[in-house]
């Protein structure tokens, strides 16, 4: 028997996202204005994949960008917006109002329950929040039932199984031992609910560095790791704030009509061939000003 080395998980972005095929159900990590894997999202939009079901538990402009690029037919989640910059994601809103995109409403806690059920291999998990609201009417997959233990009205939250989870972590080694910064949002739940995980990182570090904080490691067999420094821009990571001005400019472009939105997409998503080229469209001075 001969000794063998471990396989590398490091992958170029376009190879990594080739697992996302037309019609796939894709979970995207991050929350509101933090930690979305934007480099992966921009690459996906550039590739022009179609008919995706996007599971964005608390989403931001990653949803707007994918809709604008024509990739999405259904959005599943509890929120799409940009806090004070835009109470509702502008492209998301117009696409739903025009009927181009379908929305499947969940409460934030339903997202946790649905992803956890998928990871646990269960058909559903029960939840109380949403009883007496419009949720079961808007989203008929949520089923009201009387719990068999105490007889109280509850909702059955069906599992959401993902084909692919796209998440961000600050670092990983080349074997897919990733370590998120801060709370990691619902990213670990998305990973456990998915058949395939793609992890965008700022830095690839040695396994020795990973071993210093093993309690932070998240890992799924066969995951792909893509290096994309500052790749959460215009959203924050652990040491870069959100780019409020960029978000304001995006919202203005989206609300300005098809022409201005197309121009944003051309400049920031479609023409830059990779994350470095995207960062050049933002500029080093802007990036530098966001570092805390």
């Amino acid at each position, binding site marked *: 028997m001969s000794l063998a080395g471990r396989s590398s998980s490091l992958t170029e972005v376009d190879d990594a996202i080739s697992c996302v095929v037309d019609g796939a159900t894709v979970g995207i990590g991050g929350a509101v204005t933090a930690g979305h894997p934007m480099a992966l999202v921009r690459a996906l939009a550039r590739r022009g994949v179609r008919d995706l079901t996007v599971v964005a538990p608390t989403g931001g402009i990653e949803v707007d960008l994918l809709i604008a690029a024509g990739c999405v037919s259904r959005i599943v989640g509890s929120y799409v917006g940009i806090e004070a910059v835009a109470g509702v994601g502008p492209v998301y809103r117009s696409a739903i109002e025009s009927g181009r995109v379908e*929305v499947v409403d969940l409460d934030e806690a339903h997202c946790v329950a649905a992803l956890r059920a998928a990871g646990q291999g269960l058909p559903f998990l029960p939840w109380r929040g*949403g009883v007496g609201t419009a949720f079961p*009417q808007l989203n008929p997959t949520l089923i009201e039932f009387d719990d068999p233990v105490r007889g109280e009205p509850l909702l059955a939250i069906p599992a959401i199984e993902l084909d692919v989870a796209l998440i961000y972590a600050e670092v990983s080694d080349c074997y897919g031992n990733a370590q998120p910064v801060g709370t990691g949002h619902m990213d670990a739940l998305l990973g456990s609910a998915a058949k395939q995980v793609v992890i965008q990182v700022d830095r690839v570090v040695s396994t020795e560095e990973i071993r210093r904080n093993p309690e932070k490691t998240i890992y799924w067999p066969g995951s792909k790791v893509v290096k994309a420094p500052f790749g959460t821009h215009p959203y924050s990571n652990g040491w870069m*704030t959100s780019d409020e001005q960029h978000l304001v400019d995006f919202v203005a472009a989206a609300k300005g009509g098809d022409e201005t939105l197309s121009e944003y997409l051309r400049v920031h998503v479609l023409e830059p061939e990779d994350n470095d080229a995207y960062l050049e469209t933002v500029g080093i001075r802007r990036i530098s000003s966001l570092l805390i």
Partner: protein
Amino acid sequence: MEKPSINELFAVLLARDFHADDRTIMVGANMPMARAAAVMANVTTHPDARISIGLGVQGLGDGGDPPAVHPFLFDPRTMAAEALMFQGRVFDDMHSPDVFFVGGLQVDQRGNLNLFGIPDGEGGWKMRGPGSIALATMSAYCAGYYIVMPSHSTRTFVERVALISALGDATERARLKLPGGGIRMLLSPLGVFDFNDAGDMRLRSMHEGVTLEEVQEATGFELDVPDRVPVTPGPTDEEMQLLRERVDVYGTLA
């Protein structure tokens, strides 16, 4: 001192209203006035309360004392905290949150709130909102919650909301055995409201310069109006100084 903005007034009114035994105050996205209220209370009346705002718990913001209110909830500076709020675990501890805050597109006479949007009656949407985030869950469980409405008109104060995101109706809450205590207070740019014993919305006070006719004209149902409606006591100079110089140092509420 410059006149308080409406969000500064909201922050002060919320900070004053917390109960003495509130132990955990939790704030969601896009409610900087609630973040400011929680921090104000924490440095004055509620030093022992646990303040959970987005990513961090206590000692939030940029490490200052007290922490500052940033424009965005999910700001890396909020990780200068003594604990973190994990989105995947926060719903495992539903006995903990005493206080939560909600806003919405529409509120109705019974206190039900809509953040989904307005359906077109044919399976589509006339106006789509952002989604309900965690309103349904937090309003079901927390000991009490505050509604902050950024606008007050017959479009936002309606007899029945088109869709219920957070169930406020006290009768329905009791029937469905929801464990939480329900709505404590509702704030709008015109006044302060609560709910009478029958569960209908009642005018508690009107902000300075607002008339009863204005409130009634802007409300799409019959408000319970007591014989005497006081003027909302405005922020004191001390409250404004604390808010502007120590809590909202970036002027997010201005």
